């Protein structure tokens, strides 16, 4: 009868609710908890998974150097399954436990939801505030039109990456082809690359400009045909995932003689998918690769990343996340507290020296990090290869923080 079924479900709900209400995750007392949310299941599971592994290694280092205000950092992970609603659930879980920080790296749609969610929460609950540390959602408007006082972006945004690519283009390249994914991110790349090419390289002509539906194209050979017909010397693309790897593979198979400028070839899986055939052709815009320390003679950083390599089978591409925690460490120590209201005020405008020796700033106007950026080429003959392919990244161009100090349109509301 209906009754029994209802009783069963009621009972189930009661039991689970009571159990859950008692506390979701148990953790050590006294640590500074950071709620980290990214996809940990489903098609993008490797993003969250690899980030977690890198965070663990980084926190061992940071906590080994005292943590912040005498307490250690601790990461609590929450699988957002690539859905903004789940990320907002993570936010609720974090604020329930009075966590001072929520961190997220993948997906500008999720980032947009979190910025709004954190803003509204902090406004409605001034005694239980939280800071949102953005470790990789790069849509430009997140620190422009959608900027917020409580949001700190720790990675260069699309505009900055586009400028880096424009600066890295060699003098002899005068014809470029643009191919991007047809959604907000890809359209931003398209727009920003064209803006910076006009500004910095007026001699360069954009001979082709395509948008492809996200994740749907399996056969890139017709696009390669068009690229070849246009006579382009460089292909600039913000594509990620199969959209990037299949494009590059198709180009190489057809014998396309072109330079590939990407934003994500250096992330997990890229090197494997491109393979040795990409020698000297593929470039990527990145915050870090394992050979920079070798090139600049930073032996302690090199030793640190080398040890990570010995324990993991993927590149330590996110070693730059250490800078995030060094910022948090410095800000909290400066404010003398891990309370969000206090350390956020200390964090904006802060400058520290990062592990590659550059001066990195958290810009006060829009909470965007200003750090150095590199363009690396995938090639043989480097000390540390990627994913056992025999090839690795070598820096071709270094762009300094001051060169990426772009104007912004942020009008953030500051707490009184």
């Amino acid at each position, binding site marked *: 009868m209906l009754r029994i079924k209802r009783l069963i479900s009621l009972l189930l709900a009661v039991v689970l609710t009571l159990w859950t209400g008692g506390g979701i995750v148990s953790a050590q007392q006294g640590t500074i908890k950071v709620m980290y949310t990214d996809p940990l299941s489903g098609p993008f599971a490797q993003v969250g998974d690899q980030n977690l592994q890198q965070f663990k290694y980084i926190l061992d280092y940071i906590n080994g150097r005292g943590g912040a205000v005498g307490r250690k950092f601790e990461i609590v992970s929450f699988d957002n399954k690539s859905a903004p609603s789940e990320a907002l659930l993570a936010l609720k879980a974090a604020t329930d436990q009075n966590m001072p920080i929520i961190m997220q790296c993948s997906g500008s749609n999720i980032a947009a939801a979190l910025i709004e969610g954190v803003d509204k929460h902090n406004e409605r609950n001034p005694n239980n505030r939280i800071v949102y540390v953005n470790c990789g959602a790069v849509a430009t408007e997140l620190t422009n039109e959608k900027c917020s006082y409580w949001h700190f972006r720790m990675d260069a945004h699309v505009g900055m990456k586009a400028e880096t690519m424009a600066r890295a283009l060699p003098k002899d390249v005068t014809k470029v082809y643009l191919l991007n994914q047809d959604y907000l991110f890809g359209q931003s790349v398209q727009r920003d690359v064209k803006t910076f090419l006009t500004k910095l390289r007026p001699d360069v002509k954009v001979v082709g400009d395509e948008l*492809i539906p996200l994740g749907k194209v399996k056969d890139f*050979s017709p696009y390669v045909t068009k690229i070849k017909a246009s006579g382009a010397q460089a292909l600039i693309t913000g594509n990620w995932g199969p959209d990037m790897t299949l494009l590059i*593979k198709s180009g190489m198979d057809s014998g396309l003689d072109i330079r590939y400028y990407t934003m994500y070839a250096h992330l997990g899986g890229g090197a494997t998918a491109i393979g040795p055939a990409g020698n000297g052709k593929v470039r990527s815009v990145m915050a870090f690769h394992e050979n920079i320390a070798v090139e600049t003679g930073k032996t302690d950083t090199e030793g640190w990343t080398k040890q990570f390599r010995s324990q993991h089978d993927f590149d330590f591409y996110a070693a730059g996340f250490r800078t995030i925690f060094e910022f948090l460490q410095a800000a909290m120590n400066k404010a003398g507290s891990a309370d969000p209201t206090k350390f956020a005020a200390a964090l904006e405008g802060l400058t520290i020296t990062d592990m590659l020796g550059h001066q990195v700033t958290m810009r006060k106007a829009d909470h965007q990090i200003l750090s150095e950026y590199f363009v690396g080429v995938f090639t043989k003959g480097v000390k540390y290869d990627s994913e056992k392919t025999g090839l690795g990244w070598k820096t071709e161009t270094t762009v300094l923080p001051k060169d990426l100090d772009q104007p912004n349109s942020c009008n953030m509301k500051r707490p009184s």
Partner: protein
Amino acid sequence: MEVLLVSLLNGLVYGMLLFMLASGLTLIFSMMGVLNFAHASMYMLGAYFAFSVSRVIGFWAALVVAPILCGILGALIEMYALRRVHRNGHIAELLFTVGLAFIIEKATQMAWGLLPVPYRVPPVLDRALFHVYGSNFHAYRGFMLLISILMFVAIWLLLTRTRIGLVIQAALTHPEMVGALGHNVPRVFTIVFAGGSVLAGLAGVIGGNYLVTEPSMAATMGPIVFVVVVFGGLGSLAGCFIASLIMGLVQTFAVVIDVSLADLLARLGVPVTSATPLAEVLTMPLPRVGALLPYLMLILVLLIKPRGLMGTRDT
């Protein structure tokens, strides 16, 4: 002319890749009425098995071994699980395969990891076969074309020249009657399901190193294969073949034909500016929506011919 020829070639190769995947599904779908959502998972397993096997005994052996492994797995699934679900109806079978796809994806992640695996084209095929107007035609694509044509011929011969093939053909259109005539229909079902899995596995072996071998490859290939199968029609392998080619060519040519609705309207004398309502939709050039055309075509065909292009029965 150059563009036409090159695009024709590209469209043909892509269409044949789709056919390799869709042929197995059409057989299963036509025979059992089961929309097998786990078909793309067999494709993925074929690629992964080939990756692991080729590291031990080489690519050419893997070409034979991996599809057989998929076939065995398919037979087991059919005999011990799908058969039970069969009596609960078509929707239950479909949902079963959905759950199966979930589980296979997770198992793959657990067994081979979350990242793409370095399953590569064998070196002997990794070069240019010939040149077409300055671009290389990669040898491996020629190999893919060859295998898919052989596959088509083999299936056709099997269905028309062997006894079991004739039984299968009959069961494709009149399953109950075939059972009434005394043939062991459950065994035929198992053979077809296993055969479909072999075909999917073979497609995976061939396609996995050409495309990327990763745990989400089933989810990305799945929808387009369904579209092809339903578009081609139930009960018709020829329909599947034609549908694959049409889809491949349409998607390829859409990329090179750079027009939008606004262009057409302008030719008719109706200017479209950014202020026009739905301007975003009208100025959308064809290449941008190329990959969506299969879905549009599917909807159109189903509205006019619910059985698909050359379908011979409903379910």
